[in-house]
């Protein structure tokens, strides 16, 4: 790949005699458009990364050049032009942001209101430049201190690369290798920031961790990288995203999440994804191509993925569990709602490797408008995985006759002691249910929201309190305009 003239010039401008032909200019806010080795060096230098991490990125980049974008998902989208993307942009300065809520898109504000988000929070979410962000700074500081006392490391991945190189070296890319798949490899080469969490032995993390409180790192950009390590006997619950709609200029989001769970530890990972889904005619919207994987390496370790996917024009992700340790447990609870022209190809992979491992998959797909919703999942039992148990249920609900709901499960068993069950149904909202709600005085949209919430209840119950209430409202909002 030939670097563009613009790139070369910019890089030449900032480069000196440094080993990589490069000096960092901290003032520069944007890397030039396009992707090449110099851009990666730029990102790495900007993040003051150790040399090994740069090497790692470059190796990933070289691999990525040889890879082809996969076309097996049932998704219809224009493949991104990777030379037409900015791979690094510093967070917006206060001058660029809206000065007050009056400058924010009124439709966005309407949604905030429906979700019951406080005015102050609305300001933060829509990126209004406020000098002191009400209480959350102090809240965050208090949180950080409480965590520190218990030895929990909770910081940005760039900080971790500098402060905890041993942990980073040991675990980064150990679950999702740098050459894993097209988008994960791209992420490995260019990830800009993300979260690093380490829970020491025997510590039960005293609070639910969320990027929301890591306010100094609010803008993590489009290539996010998360690495969470739960050491022996520890527990952590991690929340990703928030119910409020998120606008972003970047169309392509390719994140990688790696979880490592050692003996008797547990990670609960909850996601509410509400990126901009594009308008009613399917114009715009985020491509959300994510690789999420958990390795249950320890005995009796446990991971639980819960996701509520309502946003993005295209969602393409399969949070997976490698059940390596004996007696490890993997869980996957998912609600995916697609409306208008949204498309979602999502599901999970449960790879049973150790003995006495078990997994549960509950997936609820709701498709409305002209949307396509696909569940794709794999349950694989390796020859030595004695006494594996799996239960899978995936239900789809269709609203309107122009959408599609698809189920593509793979069940592969190589051990005779395995007990695997899979069931799936596809149906629509029954006329009787709807009629009953209407005659009780609900309007059609309220009725649909009520029925959909009932349909998703098993999954919603898994959400932490912080999310649960808002997520319920979110389901209703996501389906607005799909009936009547």
């Amino acid at each position, binding site marked *: 790949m030939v670097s563009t003239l613009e790139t070369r010039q910019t890089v030449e401008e900032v480069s000196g005699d440094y080993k990589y032909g490069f000096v960092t200019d901290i003032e520069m806010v944007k890397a030039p458009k396009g992707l090449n080795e110099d851009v990666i060096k730029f990102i790495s230098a900007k993040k003051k990364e150790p040399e090994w991490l740069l090497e790692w990125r470059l190796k990933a980049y070289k691999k990525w050049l040889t890879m082809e974008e996969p076309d097996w998902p049932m998704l219809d989208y224009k493949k991104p032009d990777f030379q037409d993307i900015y791979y690094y942009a510093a967070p917006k300065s206060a001058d660029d942001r809206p000065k007050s809520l009056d400058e924010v898109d009124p439709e966005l504000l309407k949604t905030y209101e429906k979700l019951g988000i406080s005015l102050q929070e609305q300001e933060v979410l829509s990126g209004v430049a406020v000098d002191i962000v009400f209480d959350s700074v102090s809240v965050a500081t208090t949180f950080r201190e409480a965590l520190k006392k218990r030895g929990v490391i909770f910081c940005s991945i760039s900080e971790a690369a500098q402060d905890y190189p041993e942990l980073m070296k040991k675990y980064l890319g150990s679950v999702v290798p740098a050459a894993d798949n097209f988008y994960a490899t791209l992420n490995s080469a260019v990830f800009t920031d993300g979260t690093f969490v380490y829970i020491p032995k025997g510590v039960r993390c005293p609070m639910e961790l969320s990027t929301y409180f890591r306010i100094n790192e609010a803008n993590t950009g489009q290539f996010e990288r998360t690495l969470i390590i739960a050491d022996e006997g520890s527990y952590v619950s991690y929340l990703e995203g928030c119910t409020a709609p998120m606008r972003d200029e970047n169309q392509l989001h390719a994140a990688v999440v790696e979880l490592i769970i050692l003996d008797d530890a547990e990670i609960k990972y909850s996601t509410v994804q509400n990126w901009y889904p594009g308008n009613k005619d399917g114009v715009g919207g985020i491509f959300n191509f994510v690789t999420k994987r958990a390795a249950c390496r320890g005995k009796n370790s446990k991971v639980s993925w819960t996701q509520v996917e309502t946003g993005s024009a295209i969602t393409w992700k399969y949070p997976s569990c490698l059940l390596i340790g004996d007696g490890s447990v993997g869980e996957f609870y998912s609600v995916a709602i697609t409306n208008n022209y949204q498309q979602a190809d999502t599901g999970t992979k449960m790879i049973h490797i150790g003995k006495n491992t078990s997994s549960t998959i509950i997936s609820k797909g709701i498709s409305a408008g002209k949307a396509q919703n696909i569940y794709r999942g794999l349950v694989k039992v390796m*020859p030595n995985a004695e006494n594996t148990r799996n239960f899978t249920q995936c239900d789809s609900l269709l609203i309107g006759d122009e959408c*599609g709901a698809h189920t593509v499960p793979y069940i592969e068993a190589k051990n*005779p002691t395995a007990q695997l069950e*899979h069931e799936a149904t596809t149906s629509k909202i029954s006329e009787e249910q709807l009629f009953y709600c209407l005659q009780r005085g609900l309007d059609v949209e309220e009725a649909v929201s009520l029925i959909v919430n009932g349909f998703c209840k098993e999954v919603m119950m898994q959400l932490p309190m912080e999310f649960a209430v808002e997520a319920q409202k979110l389901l209703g909002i996501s389906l607005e305009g799909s009936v009547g």
Partner: protein
Amino acid sequence: MTEKNHFDGRNYANYFNAHRHILPNAELAWLNDVRAKAISSFIEVGLPGPKVEEWKYTNLNLLKTTIYETSEKIATENTDIIQKYALEGVLGSKVVFVDGYFNSELSDVQKQQGVVLTSLNEFISANPEHAEQVFQESKNQDSLGELNTALMTGGFVLIIDENIKLAEPIQIFHIASEKSQAKSLRLKNFINIKSTSSAQIIEYFISPDNIDCWRQNVTEVIVGEKAKLEIYQFQQEGNETIHMNQTLADVKESGNFKHYSLNIGGKISRTEIKPTINGLYGNVDLRGAFLGRNGNSHDVFTHMKHMKPEGDSNQSYRGVLDKGGKSAFQGKVYVAKDAQLTNANQSNKNLLLDRGAEANSKPELLIYADDVKCSHGTTVGELDNEAIFYLKSRGLDQKAAKALLVEAFVAEVFEDIKLQSVKSRYLELAGSWLESGD
């Protein structure tokens, strides 16, 4: 990075060019064209590799380099074999193919007004125009179908005029002899049941052990309005046989198509059934079982398409895998946007009896209509120890207890068969399969 890069089509192209003149009815120019077109489409796409989703679980690498030569017609040798396999009390016509060619001595084709039952080669030479039209309308759906058309040596044609109900089932025997070593046996069959008519077909696939041959049958079926067709298949191939059997069915308004199969033999066994409901109220029922051990690899692939409203389809497959047995069930239900009020069910249950057994299942739903009821279920597990214990406490030994449970497990899919002799043959075979194990 497509698979076809690794596939050298020249082998097949050369082979075809060298042998096209000795294929049946080679003197017919149009048939020659049909074959030539088919071979070039085949070479263009190549053999499906493991990266092709539909062939994920069955590896055809050995076909890339080895050419199985087209089989040759042999004189009748073993006349007892038909007696051995034919079902007692089934009085309809018997059609026998030996090594891919129709055998008139062993066959017993009964004449009936309004019913055409003949070998494909005879049909082509007797009615070339009609045959040409049939081939024009035929649509191969994949590269292996093209290969079949290019190199077929025969097949059968069954056409039943309107309003005729065949009283007795037709039995069709596909026999491979010892001489089929390293040969390919390719048949193309056409079945057309016109409105309000009905027929039953029983097919047997038999080859000797230790004979490495490649059988490839493609059957195109039309089930007319209110017509009814039932196909019962017994696949009892030898341990070295590659068995491929594809059935494409076009089901018209209120048509009823049933397909039952039992797969026991073969080193690679692939049963493909692709019915399409093209009229209102179509009804399709696909059921079967596959029993595998010691290098058997069974692959059942269904693609059920609902194109019109108010159709019903049902799929139910059971797999039993013992040591060294491998299976894949890949079922697909497609419901088009117009096919409202469709009911589609899919079920696949697998039993793993021992270590070294493998079961794969991929029941897929693709649904574009909202007012439908579709479901699928899959299970994989072992025999219930308590049930075995119960039977043992009643005086059965371990093996007999297992056999009884497996038989009951398999029996469920064959429960509704009305032809008693067919049903008991299915159960007999399933029972004896288990007893023949170690």
